[in-house]
């Protein structure tokens, strides 16, 4: 059976609720996003709907059985935007409930590990991104950062910068997913935001960008240049929002 959901996190959890209720064969059951699904002959399709009540029942059960850390992992795995997230989550939970309370830690199990890999990829990029985000001061004193992470991380960036840069106005903008987080020294709010064509920088901004680039060039030891390692540690896909890597 192929279950279809709307692509939202709550949608996935509601679908999980229904799939567990239906008790179908674990191996054949799949959970896919409605928009991305392509019908194949012999597929038996079941539509599911987002029901907040059902979703929160799943959440409560996961937390009670496996603990909060396990639920956090599921949330991270969702942010990987893996098209197979639904099926992976279903198989992982089916297996974990069979194994009991520590089930999510059976790393030699394929179903558990498949979801864990989604989580791990997000957790890793999220840590890298905490370092790679670059703010630039705009003319109104707002620090603006645009970035294009592989996974949907913006929500994971916010608590860190809310604490660290608590005394400045900032905006973090995911230009690929066209959304942004705004911080006003008190609270953060999220909103859709298209890429901005013209940015007007503060008078000091250029000076510091120049200094940072100079520092970046001078801190490397020429005798030890290693472009391959450089790209490995800081992949090229991130370069277009890194101040030190911009060409102009």
């Amino acid at each position, binding site marked *: 059976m192929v279950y279809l959901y709307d692509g939202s996190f709550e949608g996935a959890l509601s679908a999980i609720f229904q799939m567990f209720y239906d008790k179908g064969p674990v191996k054949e059951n799949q959970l896919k996003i409605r928009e991305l699904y392509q019908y194949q002959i012999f597929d038996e399709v079941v539509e599911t709907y987002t029901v907040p009540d059902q979703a929160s029942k799943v959440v409560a059960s996961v937390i009670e059985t496996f603990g909060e850390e396990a639920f956090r992992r599921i949330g991270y795995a969702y942010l990987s935007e893996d098209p197979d997230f639904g099926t992976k989550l279903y198989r992982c939970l089916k297996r974990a409930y069979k194994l009991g309370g520590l089930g999510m*830690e059976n790393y030699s199990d394929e179903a558990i590990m498949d979801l864990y890999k989604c989580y791990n990829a997000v957790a890793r990029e999220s840590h890298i991104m905490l370092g790679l985000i670059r703010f630039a001061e705009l003319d109104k004193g707002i620090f603006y950062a645009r970035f294009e992470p592989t996974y949907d991380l913006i929500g994971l960036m916010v608590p860190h910068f809310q604490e660290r840069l608590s005394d400045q106005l900032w905006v973090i903008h995911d230009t690929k997913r066209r959304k942004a987080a705004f911080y006003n020294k008190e609270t953060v709010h999220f909103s859709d935001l298209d890429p901005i064509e013209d940015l007007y920088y503060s008078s000091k901004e250029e000076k510091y960008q120049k200094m940072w680039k100079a520092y970046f060039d001078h801190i490397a030891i020429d005798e030890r240049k290693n472009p391959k*390692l450089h790209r490995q540690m800081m992949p090229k896909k991130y370069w277009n929002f890194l101040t030190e890597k911009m060409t102009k």
Partner: protein
Amino acid sequence: MDALEKLQILADAAKYDVSCSSSGSDRKAVKGALGNAALPGICHSFSEDGRCISLLKILFTNKCIYDCAYCINRSSNSAMSRAEFTPDEVVDLTISFYRRNYIEGLFLSSGVVRNPNHTMELLIAVVKRLREVEHFNGYIHLKGIPGADQHLIETAGLYVDRMSINIELPTTKSLRLLAPEKSRSDMIAPMGMIKDKIEQSKAMASRYKSVPSFVPAGQSTQLIVGATDEVDLKIIKISEALYNRMKLKRVYYSAYVPVGKSAIVPMNQVHSLRREHRIYQADWLLRFYGFTADEILTREDPNLDMEVDPKCQWAIRNPQLFPMEINKVTFMELLRIPGIGNVTARRIIAARRFGNITFEGLAKIGVVMKRAKYFVTCNGKYYGAIDLEPWKLKQILIDAPGKKANQLTMVELFPQTFGGDLGGLSV
């Protein structure tokens, strides 16, 4: 001279110091003030030599009265441009870079101007300003200047997250040769003092509500490898002593880069980065894998093998311990199996609770099978398909040359054949 020019000169002057880490401190954010420290540390960029940039690493000044032969800032190096920051400039750079998320904090060191005390006072002025005037809570790593008064080092410790005093060279003999103006005791004494103070502050913190933190991220040091002719065992032994007795968090090793010709540096060849890499691997075995220096290397065989990593080298020397049964051995034993690290060992322990791990399961867990399979059995079965004979194992476990960024030359692989004894593989 403007700040940009100074930054260029003083970053150039600081870059041979390898320490970059920003971990170990969880200095809390204060609402309305700038910054906090992230316990695991954060890398903000990577320079073109592949090293991480976490802190703004600069010298306060490179005008140095000392003439240490290995150092680019030695007073006799007339080719070097000299500059000196003002405390304001350093503070402004740190804060401005920090607000843009370029850096995790400041790593401030300095050449010795006038005398060690004067230099230390300059450094303290900067960190004091950052903490007390700017209310900056980011990470600060400060170099202790050897020979400065203890009370100055102590004062500095109240403002910073990490302190380091470089021991520079592995032995007193080498130090006398290359840095005759520095003394070993000037380095070791403050290190011991910082260690005691850290322990005191921790003991107080468990008893009282609010105790001023003292160097919460601990201390580290650095030594230069390959400027003198010490064998690897000697170096690993020194590190072991520093970790055990001085409770250091890190010892950094820097492969000597010949900076301008100096007649008295004994080994003036371009040094192998491979050796530095192997020493770091051995250092990891000391800190995270429960090895002792005498296990990693022996008197008969005092240098690290450039072809296989130190753990493989150890395993090859001790075939009687293998293969180990993956479903039976303890955590500490798992850590000794080549191809298994801390993360995978923990996963194995977690997964074992659900039943025996199969050979396929081991691969799922993330174990590096191309190394591990020769050293383990799964449920009694051995999958390595060779006899555990040292000379055969070694051939199989060689890091394939050509895949690496720094390809080994024939001379490096066969030093005896091509160049005779080059001071123990340090080509």
